[in-house]
């Protein structure tokens, strides 16, 4: 039986680790390579890097970070942020990323998902979705809308419809990131996660809002997520990865406990 995964997300800007609250006011909080290794040794199941570097001329810094991490961290490594083409994806794969996360560029040009999945395989293409709760309407029947630009631009696209389209186009995994919950530490958006996880056959990673170990338990059970993504709760030392996994295991979830 598959274990539920605990995934840490590291936002990287200009090669430094940053943590955003509701995607604004990012601040530097350390060296991504060091942090990645620390979590790996402490039993992390998977690592996600999100490149939030604003200027394109500094993008190559990310390749160096990925390469440095891949030579000392031997768990799946996923990278997202600014991927617009198959060549962006293959560059990151060569640097050592296992999976590629596509987000805004796929919303603007959905064929990007098809192109990446045929080039590097479905299982390596993750569709990351930033989602905000809105009033239900004809345009947004699920009541959840896809947003881009760090949550600032609503796209008039229904989140559930987009999840299903992404799966159909070849995304092997979905990240459900609630912009409303992101950075609040009040818990994941359970209703949203559960709705999408039950509608698709690919694994779903819940993201945004984790503050307590109970929040992970909640989204992995009630929320039907296959993996829970954490950021600030481990970055600032409030919890250790091993502590979160120990808690989930004690609650009866199947968790990888020997590493």
């Amino acid at each position, binding site marked *: 039986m*598959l274990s539920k995964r605990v995934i840490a997300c590291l936002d990287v800007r200009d090669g430094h680790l940053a943590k955003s609250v509701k995607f604004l006011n990012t601040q530097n909080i350390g060296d991504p390579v060091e942090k990645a290794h620390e979590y790996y040794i402490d039993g992390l199941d998977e690592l996600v890097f999100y490149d939030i570097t604003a200027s394109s001329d500094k993008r190559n810094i990310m390749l160096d970070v990925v390469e440095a991490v891949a030579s000392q961290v031997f768990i799946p490594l996923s990278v997202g942020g600014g991927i617009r083409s198959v060549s962006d994806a293959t560059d990151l794969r060569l640097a050592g990323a296992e999976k590629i996360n596509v987000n805004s560029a796929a919303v603007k040009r959905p064929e990007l998902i098809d192109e990446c999945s045929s080039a590097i395989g479905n299982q390596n293409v993750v569709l990351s979705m930033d989602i905000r709760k809105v009033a239900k309407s004809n345009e947004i029947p699920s009541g959840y809308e896809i947003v881009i630009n760090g949550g600032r631009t609503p796209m008039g696209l229904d989140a559930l419809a987009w999840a299903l389209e992404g799966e159909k186009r070849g995304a092997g995994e979905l990240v459900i990131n609630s912009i409303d919950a992101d950075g609040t530490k009040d818990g994941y958006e359970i209703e949203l996660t559960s709705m999408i996880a039950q509608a698709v056959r690919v694994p779903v990673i819940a993201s945004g809002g984790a503050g307590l170990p109970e929040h992970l338990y909640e989204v992995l059970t009630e929320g039907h997520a296959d993996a829970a993504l954490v950021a600030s709760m481990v970055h600032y030392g409030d919890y250790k990865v091993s502590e979160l996994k120990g808690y989930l295991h004690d609650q009866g979830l199947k968790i990888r406990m020997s590493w």
Partner: protein
Amino acid sequence: MTLIVDYDAGNLASVKRACEQVGLAAEFCADPDQLRHAQRVIFPGVGAAGSAMASVKARGLDEALREVINNGCPVLGICLGMQISLDYSEENDTSTLGLIAGKVSRFRMDRPDLKVPHMGWNEVCVKQPHPVLEGIEAGDEFYFVHGYFPTPRDSSAVLATTDYEGHFASAIGKDSYIGTQFHPEKSGRVGLRLLSNFARWDGQC
């Protein structure tokens, strides 16, 4: 020299990095003549069986692989690299290398609670002691990503099993060949342990 067979089947760099981590110097190789002189071979791969077999054959790597195995050279197949060691794969209806009798089938996917592909960490239960699997303990988990699984005809070739849609063979082997469905290069400490065992294996069981 340890050679990692390069037949356009995905990203091989992670396998090389993990080998380096356990002190195993490895080079990529796409040349059958070079492969014939290998001391140790890793046959990795992700992707689809059809195109993988076509590429292996086009490069003449199939014959070279048979030869090195007949000579007792230790060979490790990983994921798709393992799957094409059997006779046949349902994926693209492909006739494969036939190093181990048996076939590769697709998960049935008739249980809505099971996601496909089988992706993530799962337990590997060792069924037969083997030098390369030494040190793997009950409860140890490895990283999997696959939609098809192997079924050797002869149960003596099944070295370890994993439970997903029922139990399937997650490590298989015969003589100096061993193959894993999981990715040791992405499986943390236990995966590196397996690679380190392989680095020291003389090909005898």
